[in-house]
């Protein structure tokens, strides 16, 4: 295989890895660091109505993903009611139904919203212009109000602004006052806008304020400049634009709450703001995974925890590759240090180190005796395994008696690894002497500790778990390191005498 192909593959892996990671960061808003805090709103809507005794049906508009807010989870509580979520072009709705109900009814809907800095505006279909007809004398009043605002405006937005101002306190004229006696402010404004040929609709929004209870939705006017662009106007102040803390609840121009078979229906909202680690916030996002957003967060929690560890192994491998190829540290067994590091993760470092050294040294002494018994190799290794189990049991029981719970975690050490380490070390001792045992055993431990520190780093854990693309980057780095023909760091020392002539 030519080198060009090799570099192409490495480059491809690198680009793919960085690409998917960036995609996840930008699209899914997965943060790069685990410590980042994100604001999460918990909003609860309570639907109250008095049922008339027969079948009842309640339909509540629900919010959807929008600028500034992303829905994490939603829940409902409604004992005895059937529930279904409906979705059409005007938005999402929850529909509760029951065959018979009497008296006061309460239905709950709660949603957790992640505050995002996503600034993209959502596409909303422009409503058609409605034919508007007025009874006398409102037709003249309406025409005059429109005429007045029209003269002082240039486009749909400025027209809307002027129109609303004509209805506000200080500039309220005769005509406006007359219209307001008969019509409600917001529907009236939408009507006037429609008459003037401006596409507009009434939408309902919720002003988010921490700790507020029994809040109601406020009406807003959505004005369309053309088919795609729209702006929100406050029907009271004529202010243009969506306030930071405004959550659009219903944008389809339909009623927020419709109840059949009940009276006195109303919906109230309470809300709570919380900060929580970004990683946790991201984890609870509603799963809308495409292949590109492929994520292990859709797995059950138990499998996720397993994967979190598995995804760390390449990091350990990278450390080993780095230390062996660039530094030149000798280890016993190529990836034994990674496995030891994995055990350290379970036991924590001090306990793990002490436990490892204790078990291996005691094991070496016992293995030394076993070598006099003239046993076959397989039998001897098996005997070492059993010895290791015995040593671990004794240490665990002893440490428990002394009151050290840390000792209990030594059991996380994989038996086979300990047994093989002991076996290899003892052979090394016989063959090459204690010095080589120290070099290789020390090298293994140093490598294992470094691998542990890398793998146990919260930042690395966060990155490897949340950005699968990182695995591809590690792969390409390892491939690149495998191509390195330069000197190892320790060789600079080893070959030093040659340069001293």
């Amino acid at each position, binding site marked *: 295989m030519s080198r060009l192909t090799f570099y192409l593959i490495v480059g491809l892996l690198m680009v793919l890895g960085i690409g998917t990671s960036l995609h996840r960061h930008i699209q899914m808003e997965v943060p790069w660091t685990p410590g980042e805090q994100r604001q999460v709103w918990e909003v609860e809507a309570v639907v109250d109505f008095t049922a008339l005794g027969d079948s009842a049906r309640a339909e509540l508009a629900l919010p959807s993903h929008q600028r500034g807010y992303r829905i994490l989870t939603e829940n409902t509580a409604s004992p005895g009611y059937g529930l279904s979520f409906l979705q059409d072009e005007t938005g999402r709705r929850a529909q509760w139904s029951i065959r018979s109900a009497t008296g006061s009814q309460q239905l709950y809907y709660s949603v957790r919203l992640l505050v995002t800095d996503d600034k993209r505006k959502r596409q909303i279909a422009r409503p058609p212009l409605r034919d508007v007809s007025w009874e006398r004398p409102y037709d003249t009043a309406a025409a005059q109000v429109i005429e007045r605002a029209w003269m002082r405006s240039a486009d749909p937005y400025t027209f809307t602004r002027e129109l609303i101002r004509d209805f506000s306190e200080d500039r309220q004229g005769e005509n406006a006052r007359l219209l307001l006696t008969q019509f409600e402010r917001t529907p009236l404004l939408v009507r006037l806008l429609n008459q003037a040929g401006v596409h507009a609709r009434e939408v309902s929004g919720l002003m988010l304020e921490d700790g507020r209870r029994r809040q109601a939705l406020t009406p807003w006017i959505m004005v369309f400049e053309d088919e795609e662009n729209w702006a929100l106007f406050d029907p009271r102040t004529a202010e243009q634009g969506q306030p930071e803390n405004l959550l659009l609840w219903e944008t389809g121009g339909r009623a927020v709450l419709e109840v059949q078979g009940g009276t006195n229906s109303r919906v109230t909202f309470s809300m709570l703001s919380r900060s929580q680690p970004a990683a946790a916030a991201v984890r609870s996002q509603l799963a809308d995974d495409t292949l590109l957003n492929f994520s292990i967060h859709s797995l059950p929690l138990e499998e996720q925890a397993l994967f979190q560890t598995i995804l760390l192994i390449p990091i350990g491998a990278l450390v080993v590759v780095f230390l062996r*190829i660039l530094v*030149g540290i000798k280890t016993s067994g190529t990836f034994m240090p990674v496995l030891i590091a994995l055990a350290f993760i379970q036991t924590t470092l001090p306990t793990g180190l002490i436990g490892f050294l204790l078990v291996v040294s005691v094991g070496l002494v016992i293995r030394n005796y076993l070598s006099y018994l*003239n046993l*076959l*190799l*397989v039998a001897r290794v098996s005997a070492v395994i059993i010895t290791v189990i015995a040593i671990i049991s004794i240490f665990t029981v002893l440490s428990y008696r002394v009151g050290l719970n840390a000792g209990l975690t030594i059991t996380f050490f994989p038996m086979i690894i300990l047994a093989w380490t002991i076996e290899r070390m003892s*052979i090394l001792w016989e*063959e*090459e*002497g204690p010095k*080589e045992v120290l070099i290789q055993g020390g090298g293994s431990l140093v490598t294992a500790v470094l691998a542990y520190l890398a793998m146990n780093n919260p930042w690395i854990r966060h990155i490897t778990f949340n950005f699968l693309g990182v695995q591809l980057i590690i792969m390409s780095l390892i491939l690149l390191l495998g*191509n*390195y*023909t*330069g*000197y*190892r760091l320790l*060789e*600079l*020392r*080893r*070959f*030093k*005498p*040659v*340069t*001293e*002539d």
Partner: protein
Amino acid sequence: MWARPSQLLRRGIIGMNRRNIRYIGRYNSRRLYPLVDDKLKTKLLAEKHGITTPALIGTVTTQFGIKGLREMIAGHSGFVIKPAKGSGGKGILVIERVDQDGFIKPSGVRLGLEDLHRHVSNILSGLYSLGGVPDVAMIEGLINFDEQLSEYTYEGVPDIRVIIFRGYPVMAMMRLSTAASDGKANLHQGAVGVGLDIATGTAVRGVQFDRSRRDHPDTGHELASLRIPDWTSLLELAAGCYEMTGLGYLGTDMVIDRDCGPMLLELNARPGLAIQMANGEGLRRRLDLVETQPEGVSVKDRVAFSQEHFARRGELRAAPAEPELAQSCAST
């Protein structure tokens, strides 16, 4: 304490990574490894190619066969037990003398038959083999090494490592065992390495534990006067291993027997880099030169080329006229 990479580069020192990728990876096909990793295979192959190796007393292939060990070694005053697939000198047990009470290692340590049995059993279990695969124990005759060389070594046979690159001998050193190395000739265990001039087989430089050394630590004999007898035929024997194995980058371990002259002890497909220390010179320039040479040159011409171009300090010493040794030894 630390050298700069540029210093090493200027001297043509080759590091592990470069050796692995640029030479072993490129010139040594993996499928040829078993030929050198299995010493029994090497031995049989050498026999076929007429390359002298130490005599094979016998092999033990099954745990059951260990019982026959005593009979096998009866009548031999000294022998070597080694695993066929061992590496780095692991599992090689040298018995110098046999007397009434047992078997005596070069260090004077006395072993019983039991110890030999255990050693063979370990070999068969794969304790010393690469990857722990079951192995075969070989029992070889002891080499009666040339008296001229005995002052230079301590308890054990000195061997001569020649790096053969594409059939050309590129660098050579002698490995002298010491008390520290327990009679073994591995540099990292403390044996002394003496760089040898490819042209003449005379000593260039000595190292122990990667540090320069002028005399043998145990015998106190100075190393400068070391001169390998029968040098050219040793190089030709070593260079012939290229045709024998097909491996482009090869470490050949040769010994000189008092009666039979140069012999092939074993081959190594991943020879170490300490030879550069012993020679005080990097391999790089020599390997680069050999890479420009055409294929299909005869063994004699290759050795002549190497002797001409790799002579130390650029001066070509006249090849010494030596009486040919009587070839009384069979090729096994």
